[in-house]
């Protein structure tokens, strides 16, 4: 690119090991742990050394969970406690994984529960911010909401059949019990619980002209970003308690956008945080999102890295959620690798 960008994306480490396409990566929210899942049906876990104060972390492989899923593990999600990992598989099941008690944090990861119910491939799974709810979605067009009970016991609170096609992604609001889902039917839907009745869909967001692959709430929750096969990232603004509208369309991706993540970032000026998106064009793009005085949104491309996984598609991207490490980014790709990056100002 000819434009001079304010930041650069430095490679920290490559974490190889999956024997097939890596679909998803998830940082543990409380511990120095990151995990990835793959079409090879495994989950790989890595620990890392301190990454705050700009010291460069080192990642080490500490465990591989064979999972026992009979098909691709498509996505993974950590509970907010950091103690439980959920896996969503093309075998239509959700796995719940917990580590055996041990002194040195090296206990085996065991399947504490297997949630059955979806008819076809599960595509995404997500814990609510309190950790008391879990959502899953599938090609069977449904979104399931589960209540998390002690001892890895789960109760299905609702099956939402609002989408007309596969549901690709579910994402909970960072503070409230609002669930968003994205679909092959090109729409995004939002759901809340009716205290006297069931969970229901209160809003459908239309605007994307093809599959919506991924959702990311802004850290403060008043915005939602969505990534689509239509090559755009859209940002939706909350304009009333139960009302959202599209406020920004970010173009620039050359092919399908598969994943988007919104972190607080390390901006020097007032900012809504850093948004990163990846996809089939293999480029990592990072924007600083800020509000103008008239409260319209502004996106500024601050960094861009082509061929981040060589010639391969990039399937997922995630900001490190841990304090002091908001400039760390992880990506996974069709090369089976997870790559760790640090976004730094160009000095």
């Amino acid at each position, binding site marked *: 690119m000819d434009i001079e960008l304010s930041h650069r994306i430095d490679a920290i480490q490559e974490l190889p090991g999956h024997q097939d*396409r890596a679909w998803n990566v998830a940082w543990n929210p409380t511990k120095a742990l990151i995990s990835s899942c793959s*079409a090879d049906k495994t989950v790989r876990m890595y620990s890392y050394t301190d990454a705050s104060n700009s010291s460069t972390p080192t990642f080490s492989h500490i465990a591989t969970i064979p999972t026992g899923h009979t*098909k*691709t593990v*498509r996505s993974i999600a950590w509970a907010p406690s950091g103690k439980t990992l959920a896996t969503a598989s*093309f075998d239509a099941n959700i796995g719940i994984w917990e580590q055996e008690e041990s002194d040195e944090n090296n206990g085996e990861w065991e399947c504490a529960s297997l949630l059955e119910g979806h008819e*076809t*491939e599960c*595509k995404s799974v997500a814990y609510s911010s309190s950790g008391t709810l879990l959502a899953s979605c599938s*090609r069977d067009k449904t979104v399931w909401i589960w209540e998390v009970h002690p001892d890895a016991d789960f109760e299905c609170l609702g099956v939402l059949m609002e989408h007309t096609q*596969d549901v*690709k992604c579910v994402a909970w609001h960072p503070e409230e019990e609002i669930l968003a889902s994205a679909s*092959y039917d090109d729409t995004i839907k939002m759901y809340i619980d009716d205290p006297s009745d069931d969970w229901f869909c209160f809003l459908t967001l239309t605007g994307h002209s*093809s*599959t919506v692959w991924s959702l990311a709430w802004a850290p403060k929750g008043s915005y939602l970003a969505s990534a689509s*096969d239509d090559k755009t990232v859209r940002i939706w603004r909350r304009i009333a308690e139960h009302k959202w509208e599209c406020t920004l369309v970010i173009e620039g991706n050359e*092919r*399908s956008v598969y994943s988007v993540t919104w972190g607080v970032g390390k901006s020097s000026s007032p900012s809504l945080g850093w948004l990163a998106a990846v996809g*089939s064009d293999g480029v990592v793009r990072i924007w600083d999102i800020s509000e103008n005085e008239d409260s319209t949104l502004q996106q500024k491309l601050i960094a861009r890295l082509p061929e981040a996984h060589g*010639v*391969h*598609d990039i399937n997922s991207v995630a900001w490190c959620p841990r304090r002091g490490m908001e400039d760390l980014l992880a990506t996974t790709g*069709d090369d089976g690798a997870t790559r760790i990056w640090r976004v730094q100002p160009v000095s």
Partner: protein
Amino acid sequence: MAVEVFNPNPVIFAPVKSTKPSSKADNIWVLDPLDIQDEAEEVDSEEPIDEHEIFDLIRSIADPEHPNTLEELRVVSAPQVKIIGNRVHVEFTPTVPHCGMSILIGLSIRVRLLRALPSRFKIDLTLKPGSHQSELAVNKQLNDKERVAAALENPALVQALEQSLANAS
């Protein structure tokens, strides 16, 4: 599975002998004359792959419901293959506009190319515009990598694909 034959009487076309640009007569569909010169420098491993080679990979795929190849049924043809950089675009034409086999045919083309081409190539697959009553739905499904990946973990579907690909040379 009860098999519905979507087109009981397809028109069969004679295959061309080779699409390799070995003689000028075979080059009627070459769009860019520079492609011919690539043949002369067939040494490098980074040798560019041209439309002819892509077509050679898919022409002998068997049709799922007839004892013919996709080339013989004119489902695929050399001019329907385009390469720009690392992007391969293959257009194909179902024999009838209600062809229920279009997804399977498309998957067989995609799998053939995924297996044979270096991973740097991104493959886009579309029906010939106007050739199918569910054109957009078929195109969307064939280019959704997640759906394709899931389909390739379905044993019944993989078995059908392997049959189509068994004699593909």
